[in-house]
């Protein structure tokens, strides 16, 4: 059902775009292909890792670290999310495999939020644009917000 909606909206978008401007539509398709090809290596790599994790890491191990909403587990997974640099397209399947492997909603929510908002690896670039203080406070406030949002999501979603 969800896939059908996606395919239909992409098709309608393409039709309207093509009616208005053929050249732009071609450009959009080219961009679509290029960004897919750019993503492919990390997509294959991460999805391969997901398979290995599900096969090798015992469910009990992940569940005991990230399944019971212990503060230590949440801190660890937030730290992992903060230092990881992953395209969001790969992050969501990865997060879903964490759930499958026994992690809690709260842990996964903290992972996703820190992954998207806190950028330790990209901090040098951010400093170059906005300065040290801006980068420090923006990332710190994002980290704090993430750790607050995570448990709240856990309350809302079951």
């Amino acid at each position, binding site marked *: 059902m969800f896939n059908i909606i996606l395919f239909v909206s992409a*098709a309608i*978008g393409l039709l309207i775009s093509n009616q208005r401007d053929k050249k732009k539509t071609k450009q*959009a398709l080219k961009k679509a292909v290029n960004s897919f090809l750019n993503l492919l290596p990390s997509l294959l790599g991460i999805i391969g890792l997901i398979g290995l994790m599900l*096969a090798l890491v015992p469910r009990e191990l992940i569940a005991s670290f990230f399944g019971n909403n212990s503060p230590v587990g949440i801190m660890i997974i937030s730290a992992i999310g903060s230092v990881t640099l992953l395209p*969001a397209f790969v992050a*969501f399947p990865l997060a879903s495999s964490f759930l499958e492997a026994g992690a809690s909603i709260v842990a996964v929510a903290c992972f996703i939020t820190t992954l998207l908002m806190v*950028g330790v690896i990209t901090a040098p670039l951010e400093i170059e644009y906005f300065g040290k203080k801006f980068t420090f406070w923006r990332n710190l406030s994002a980290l704090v917000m993430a750790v607050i949002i995570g448990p709240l999501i856990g309350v809302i979603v079951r």
Partner: protein
Amino acid sequence: MKEKIKKYYLFMLVVLVDLILWLYWPDKGITAVKSTGDYLLEMLLFIPPIFILIGLLDVWVPREIVEKNVGPDSGVKGVVISILVATAAAGPLYAGFPVAYTLMKKGCRLSNVVIFLGTWATIKVPMLMMEIKFLGLEFAAARLILTLPAIIISGYLVEKLLAGARKADTPEVNKITG
């Protein structure tokens, strides 16, 4: 060419481990490859329309709209436009740095720069579709509803914290490569 192959190192390593597993612990190897295959199939089934939508958004929502509308006197309209563009644009957090820098240089309030970056990083239309697909509508909706106020609060928080220090600390970046 070499660069291109380098990007696939992780995947090649995974395939190698899969092979070793399959040779020595066949049941584990098969489980690993099967889970990978399931996820891959699921993604390939709906990734094409998402990328087409991203391409269309990218072509039809030009980033220059932001630059034209966020001068010092543009007020709320500029902020709303920049948030809307941020949700439509493609790319990770760091791809938003140059755009946010332009906002700042044009005299946009610092809080709005932070809000723009936060929106850019966390609330994207194509990304939300991925999130709904893999984590469920409930999860995606809860995260969206909680993240928006959090971004706005941290925007004003960062502005307060940097009050006075901003001019001294902000480097004059002339080497933007884009």
